[in-house]
């Protein structure tokens, strides 16, 4: 996984609540047995609509996505996180996420950052003037060229995983003694 310390980029805004993972990556692409190459299928059906938000020229190449409440709800398919990452997104800013997506995102190298609706509203109006944000996982801060600074929270385990690009399995295997002890006590 690519480490994620700091991102400076333009921002894409998808102002819809309850976007489900069936929309992010429809089922026909889940038959693939690879882990990469899902970006071109991101929002496959919605992309057919020329009016779809992500087609706006000012959103092209964005690595930061502002999304609505309960983002990526529904199916547990990690392919949704892979598709977002492969398309180029490294950070999502939203009022809330589904529990499963939050884990999938971190493991796939995307920071799912939770911000209040009020703060997001402020960020949206700020980027509509000058479309650029910096998201800094070390400083736990979002900043805008205008001088606006917004702090955010991220669990320390998630933050370490993202900043270090760490392999979750290797981290758990370091606790082999505890796993073995649990198994011995329960066999």
């Amino acid at each position, binding site marked *: 996984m690519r480490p994620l310390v700091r991102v400076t980029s333009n921002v894409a805004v998808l102002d819809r609540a309850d976007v489900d993972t069936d929309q992010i990556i*429809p089922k026909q692409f*889940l038959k693939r047995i*690879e882990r990469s190459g899902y970006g071109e299928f991101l929002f496959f059906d919605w992309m057919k609509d020329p009016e779809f938000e992500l087609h706006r020229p000012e959103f092209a190449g964005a690595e930061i996505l502002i999304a609505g409440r309960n983002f990526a709800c529904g199916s547990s398919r*990690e392919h949704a996180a892979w598709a977002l990452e492969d398309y180029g997104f490294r950070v999502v800013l939203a009022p*809330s996420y589904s*529990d499963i997506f939050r884990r*999938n995102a971190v493991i796939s190298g995307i920071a799912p950052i939770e911000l209040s609706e009020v703060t997001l509203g402020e960020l949206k109006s700020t980027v509509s003037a000058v479309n650029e944000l910096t998201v800094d996982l070390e400083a736990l801060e979002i900043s805008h060229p205008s001088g606006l600074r917004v702090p955010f929270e991220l669990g320390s*385990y998630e933050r370490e995983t993202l900043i270090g690009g760490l392999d979750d399995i290797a981290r758990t295997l370091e606790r082999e003694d505890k*796993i073995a002890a649990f198994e011995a006590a329960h066999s």
Partner: protein
Amino acid sequence: MADKTLFEKIWDAHVVDDGEPALLYIDLHLVHEVTSPQAFEGLRREGRKVRRTDLTVATMDHNVPTEPGPIRDPLAKAQLDALAANCEEFGVPLYATGSGREGIVHVIGPELGLTQPGKTIVCGDSHTSTHGALGALAFGIGTSEVEHVLATQCLVQSKPKTMKIEFVGELPFGVTAKDMVLGAIGEIGIDGGVGYAIEYAGPAIEKLSMEGRMTICNMTIEGGARAGMVAPDETTFAYLQGREFAPAEIPAAWRELRSDPDAKFDRVVTIDVSKLVPQVTWGTNPGMVVPVDGVVPAPASPEDERALTYMDLKPGMPITDIVIDRVFIGSCTNARIEDLRAAAAVVNGHKVAASVRAMVVPGSAGVKRQAEAEGLDQVFTNAGFEWRQAGCSMCLGMNPDILAPGERCASTSNRNFEGRQGAGGRTHLVSPAMAAAAAIKGRFADVRELG
């Protein structure tokens, strides 16, 4: 010692390493073809093994065709072949198509007695919450987590908050577990459960069969919660009796698996089921739901407006005026034997409306055998239903069973998302009895009035 909830009892008994997040031991890992290939590939790449093949079981469900004959879709075939090869290479038991034990992963777990009270159960599928109906702590995980559990038999998990949904009152005639859970989702909203593990309780839950409890726990994820559970009781123990992997004697510890009287929940919701009416979803998520005697609501948000456009419905239209093209009775929500019996009871002696194409897809090979032994397949086929082989089928349309664009379907599945059953398809979620009634009438009908 402080009083604990059922959730806390199971959680505490499985903590390998405390902390935020905790490291949790997993007692049963269910695997299917769609969310596992990249996980096995990861193991191979890193030279890792499956730590506990004795706690891992695989099946084929999402992709399998439900008509006899070979698989025509080369991608689906490649994925099924990959699962078979991976299970062989890593020593994971596989209930493949044709084994007689195959079926939708959340149907066969309980059916084979693999799902048991007090276990921690995971699967790369969000409807793993189903298994909570037997008093297990069960939740869906992503593919990287599948790989993590295969390699370590543990899962990194943040401890959720706890919610109790208490169903009180007497369930009226014609109102089912599906209506209870749709009503509950309508009440808390589709993100009302985010961050929670839910325990369903109350007299209306205690009276429900295991199938009914599974329907409710299954749809927990549609309210945003990862896990839903019901305390095991005599109904649970009777259900498990004699099942292949269930213990011959009920372990004493199972009887302790209930929330203590003074256990604290972070949130409590009470729902009076005596006021419930059969539910029908009108929109593009399971929270967009109304009683069958109601009307399509006026939009209250941009999401509602988008949903009305997608579903091609006008506010104020009576639900019973909505004409349907297809009926799907199936999925891990409602394709167990009791569901098929309920649908067959409505269908018996009637014909599917000429304008409707209707199908029944049993949840497992076992359910199919049982239904055929009871003659239910005859009831359905005599009425004009197609009777298929077990699988996920049109719940998500990864196999050839899909809606054509614009087609409208009364479905017993769990998700009415845009395109879920086929691009451009329109899904209305209902109970098996309501789906059967819709098949006969060619539009939604109040099953209570059909008698």
